[in-house]
């Protein structure tokens, strides 16, 4: 990754961006916006041209005519030669997928129009969208100049890894976008770009066609300007898929629904006129996890958190403090597991069947040694951060290190899952016995002690300048994910909602709920936004 590609540019012409027009973008307006704004924002890395879009038949569905962006690691198929599924990597720079992801099929069946592929950190590995062969995407929001020297004003990061999707939605280049969230890659950029970013429960949306990073943590995520838009997209794409064995079956879905909706307030919240009630969230208990009050948390994030809690309280929620004692172990456990899986998932980019292939130089008499070809191909095809993560992941899986890193991390993951289960009122549908028992209990008028959702910050601070951290320790940048990784480890749904600004830069708050409780989480989230 070369930082010379980031222009040090004045950003005054983009200051007006934060005032959104109220009507959602159409395909035509999106095309217009893309042509005007994309050259500076670098959100779309491939985009479909008007002629191509004109040929595309639009299905008559709930999302009819919605312009949508697809992250560059989700497989799409079109007639265009430029429609590559590059994952932001040199290794797949000109790779065209022979099949389309289930989630994209579902979007198109609902009437959405795919505008193009969005920028990202290579294979999803990064929090600032700086590790991309296309150069970084930029945040449409810009802070007030701190002093008079224009050279001090740098572009802000849109966050990563789904930075392109976030920037595209925030700047009206599309109405909604798909991202992928392995450790916060949808929620962090959503928070930094001032939009809504939703990571559903693991298995809600099929991963078939999502190029994997850490398969046990990966989820397709949805980004839009409002929770209502996210809900509409989610309804269109949250379906069972036999092509993904980890996708929830119809049976499991209806089982969860039964439990989720048997809470007394659920029916009221799901009905249409709840917005008019004075205390629409009465009966809902919101937990504030103590352990999220970390040292790194900025004053503005803390303020936003407090205000969010007050807002929910004013709407009728009961606010309680909860404890998830092992949350501080989540970050190291996450990086161990995600990187181990990444080293495995990325082993296939060897240049034999597709993608970049490089021959080693004339360093030997005959270059028949396959391992040298692999080494050359992978050294040139994969970027520095991806190589770093593959090496770390390979190390933690090795015979010598497995006992000290990989296995303990698996145990921490299970502990964290159990701790989440212990704070939520709704039992985890994957542990059948507890689930049945609680439901019976509720039916006879009992009330569980736990909370219905958790409220905590999405990021420790607002979006950093793109150039910051150039010489910094890489590990320090991993701290950006501290608030987001627990939901991935536990497989639970979490959503980041914009709640305010600091120096014109957006701040996001997260709500998380029990595994499978996506629908009601989204309903509650509608009330959180400012």
């Amino acid at each position, binding site marked *: 990754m070369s930082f010379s590609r980031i222009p040090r540019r004045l950003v005054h012409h983009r200051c007006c961006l934060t005032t959104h027009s109220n009507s959602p973008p159409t395909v035509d307006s999106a095309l217009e916006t893309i042509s005007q704004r994309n050259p500076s924002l670098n959100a779309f890395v491939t985009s479909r041209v008007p002629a191509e879009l004109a040929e595309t038949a639009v299905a008559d569905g709930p999302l009819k005519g919605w312009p949508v962006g697809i992250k560059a690691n989700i497989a799409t198929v079109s007639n265009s030669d430029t429609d590559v599924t590059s994952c932001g990597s040199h290794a797949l720079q000109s790779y065209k997928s022979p*099949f389309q992801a289930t989630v994209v099929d579902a979007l198109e069946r609902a009437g959405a129009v795919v505008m193009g592929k969005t920028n990202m950190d290579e294979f999803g590995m990064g929090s600032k969208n700086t590790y991309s062969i296309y150069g970084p995407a930029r945040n449409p929001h810009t802070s007030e100049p701190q002093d008079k020297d224009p050279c001090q004003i740098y572009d802000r990061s849109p966050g990563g890894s789904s930075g392109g999707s976030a920037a595209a939605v925030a700047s009206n280049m599309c109405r909604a976008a798909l991202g992928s969230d392995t450790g916060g890659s949808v929620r962090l950029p959503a928070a930094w770009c001032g939009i809504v970013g939703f990571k559903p429960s693991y298995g809600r949306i099929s991963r078939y066609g999502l*190029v994997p990073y850490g398969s046990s943590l990966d989820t397709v995520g949805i980004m839009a300007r409002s929770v209502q838009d996210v809900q509409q997209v989610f309804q269109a794409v949250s379906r069972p898929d*036999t092509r*993904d*064995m980890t996708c929830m079956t119809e049976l499991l879905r209806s089982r969860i629904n039964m439990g989720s909706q048997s809470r007394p307030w659920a029916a009221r919240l799901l009905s249409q006129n709840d917005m008019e009630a004075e205390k629409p969230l009465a009966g809902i208990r919101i937990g504030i996890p103590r352990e999220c009050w970390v040292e790194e948390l900025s004053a503005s994030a803390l303020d936003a958190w407090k205000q969010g809690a007050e807002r929910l309280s004013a709407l009728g929620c009961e606010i309680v403090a909860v404890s998830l004692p092992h949350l501080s172990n989540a970050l190291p456990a996450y990086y161990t597991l995600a990187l181990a899986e990444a080293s*495995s998932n990325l082993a296939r980019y060897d240049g*034999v069947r597709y993608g970049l292939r490089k021959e080693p130089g004339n360093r030997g008499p005959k270059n028949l040694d396959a391992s040298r070809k692999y080494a050359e191909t992978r050294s040139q095809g994969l970027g520095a951060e991806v190589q770093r993560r593959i090496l770390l992941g390979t190390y933690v899986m090795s015979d010598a290190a497995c006992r000290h890193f990989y296995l303990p991390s698996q145990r921490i993951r299970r502990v964290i899952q159990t701790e989440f289960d212990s704070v939520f009122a709704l039992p985890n549908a994957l542990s059948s016995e507890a689930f049945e028992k609680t439901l019976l209990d509720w039916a006879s008028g009992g009330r569980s002690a736990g909370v219905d959702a958790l409220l905590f910050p999405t990021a420790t601070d607002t979006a950093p300048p793109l150039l910051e951290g150039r010489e910094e320790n890489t590990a320090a940048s991993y701290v950006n994910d501290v608030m987001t990784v627990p939901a991935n480890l536990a497989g639970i749904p979490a959503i980041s909602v914009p709640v305010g600004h600091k120096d014109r830069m957006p701040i996001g708050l997260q709500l998380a709920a029990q595994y499978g409780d996506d629908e009601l989480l989204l309903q509650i989230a509608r009330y959180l936004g400012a």
Partner: protein
Amino acid sequence: MRQLEKLLRRLPARGFGYSTASGGWRSTVGLELHVQLLAKQKLFSAASAKWNDGPNTNVYMVDASIPGSLPRLNPHCVQLAARAILGLKGQVQPVSSFDRKHYFYLDQPLGYQITQQFFPIGKGGFIELGQAEGLGYSKKVHIHQLQLEQDTAKSIHDVYPGHVLADLNRAGVGLIEIVTRPDIETAEEAAQFVRKMQVLLRHIGVSNCNMEDGSMRCDVNVSVYRDGNDRLSGTRCELKNLNSLKVIRSAIDAEVSRQVGLLTAGKEVEQETRGFDARSGTTFLTRSKEAAPDYRYMPDPDIPEVHISRNWVEEVQRTLPELPEMTRERLKKQYNLTKEDIETMINEPGCVSFFEQLATTRDPKRVASWVTSEVFGQLSYRAQRLADSPLTVAQLGELLDSLANNAITSAQAKQLLIEFMDGETRSTAELIKAYGWKVLDDDSLIRQIAKDILDKHPKEVSGYLKGQARRLNFLIGKTMQATKGQARPQDVSRIVKELLESASAD
């Protein structure tokens, strides 16, 4: 010859070879068998499992590791693995799971093999060796575990110099790996164990188990110890890719001899992987312990745990055919067949059932002789398996009935059998009509024809009358020819003899 062979086989009783010959050294052997499942589709994709079709024709997304594709477990493979472990009298595990075994090679498109390292689908069970295998004692060889895993792609060397070609047809075909406990003590036991495993797995329809075409592959762990010591005290070496029973025997003997040689010379056995060179009859180093790869096993996050209910296991158990030992006994008791016929039929998948469907309403001995000599003769001529032959039970049944009713001669029957095995679909009755065949059973007509032949060959007649018995076959043959094969040989033979006798009386 056979008697002698049996005798020799019985001689090397417990502790074959070096245990007695080489100053009290004994050997300990464990086997790893890789067996290709008889499933139509691959373990994790719907592509056909026919790996010998045109190169790279049976390849789906996941077989070529296309980014974003995901594995989908084929339930038929799970069922076949369950059949295998139940056939071995082991237990299907209620919970099993899949793991990734990592290494870079072009025969491994994903960069890892999906296998069951930590929680295999099957554990326990055994195969018993004894008299039937020519051993002078009986023993059980226990199964440590049975796991499902993917086969690799085929890499083809030396077709284009400087290039290695990859055929992904075989990539992802379902295998089971069966690992024994180190219960085996001699090369002969190892070979007999493998042979018996082949018979069992073929019989229950799990695999073809052909070592020649690689649908069964064998790795062997060998160590030696001095008599009286712990039998697991020796350092073991792994012999890889032993591709016939003969090679298994020779390779184990060679390796035992090498290890004993090292130890008696005061050297040590290094833990390593070795191959076998059949020409020199010795094993050679392929990989030292230092070069052993670190496979970085990891639970496969794309495949959920497999939960198997007791009901499901019972259902599989119910569909399991009778096991070979019981079949042998029953075939002997019920049909009074020879040992050779029984062995031939048991070793061919589907054959016992084929035979039994025919034998219920017919003379079993006669059916067995037709199946084992005529049908098998044709199968081996065609290098075909019974299961792949177009010949049906109904066809052979009608054929045998026509023969028994004297509607056709045995020469005609053999001709029809060949046509059926070529793919003829018309019935025996239709073919008889089409060919205008009738059996000539008019004695006077045969007598007329035979008389003509005798008249034309006075030299042979007088020769026979002078005691040259072989002239008789010539005259019978000529007469058969003259009837165009439509007369029954026994009729012709009887009439020719009668005529000759009356001639000698003249």
